[in-house]
């Protein structure tokens, strides 16, 4: 199935507000095996100059995935999700997310390119506080393997 190149540059609606919680950060840190106290101990995080426990650098994927799924899952784009693998991931950060942040995420399809029988689709997802502060931008590239 061909990917619809006219989707390049298309921006999808922002997600509903997501509240970053201490419990979710602690669960994520435990799952990746990272015992850094700044993820679980609010006192240690405050002593290090943060308002509350902070989230690990890859935590924003939890938030960007929900937004980029809306873009990648759009039937008009024509991606066969069963044939998709995660090819690349990048984040830029103005600061770490912390417990208490309330954020929305919005995705734009920023790249579509074909390499042989594979199609690579990149979504750029901005995570902003509900006050409009840009905290993190995620760039995820999914690779659809050709079925022929």
């Amino acid at each position, binding site marked *: 199935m061909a990917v619809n190149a006219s989707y390049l540059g298309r921006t999808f609606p922002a997600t509903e507000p997501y509240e970053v919680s201490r419990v979710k950060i602690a669960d994520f840190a435990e799952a990746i095996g990272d015992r*850094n106290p700044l993820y679980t101990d609010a006192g240690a995080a405050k002593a290090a100059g943060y308002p509350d426990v902070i989230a*690990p650098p890859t935590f924003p*994927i939890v938030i960007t*995935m929900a937004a980029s799924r809306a873009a990648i899952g759009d039937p008009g784009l024509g991606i066969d999700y069963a044939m998709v693998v*995660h090819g*690349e*991931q990048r*984040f830029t*950060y103005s600061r*770490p997310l912390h417990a208490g942040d309330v954020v929305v995420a919005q995705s734009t399809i920023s790249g579509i390119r074909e390499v042989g029988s594979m199609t690579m689709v990149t979504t750029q997802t901005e995570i902003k506080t509900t006050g409009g502060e840009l905290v993190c931008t995620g760039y995820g590239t999914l690779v659809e393997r050709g079925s022929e």
Partner: protein
Amino acid sequence: MTTFADVAVGTDLPPASYPVTRLSLVKYCGASGDFNVIHWNERIARSVGLPNVIAHGMFTMAQAGRYVTDWAGDAGAMREFGVRFSAMVVVPDDDTGATIELSGTVEEKLDGNLVAVALTARSRDAKVLSRARAVVRLP
């Protein structure tokens, strides 16, 4: 804590290795919300042509992130972080699982106390991350 003045271009970070077991993947499914069956169901993983259950790419990226923030000494130091998933981390159903081995080299010192680190992640002799790079802000 590593300071900007401490680091020199070309310096190698001390290598580290991190285990990944089936339990790690089950926990990561729950914590991340990514329940793709190839990360927990061997029968389906094999039926789609994989050698076994494989780790989430983002689990491997998380280990690389931990490697960098542990070195920097501040979990909030990351300003840029990017990887390419170049091979699978295959996780067998035993008590040992797999190992992800990280190494890194200081690549560049930039304005604003920023330091770029080039990273390599391997598992069973395969390079599982390529073009992996992190930029941290150091005091």
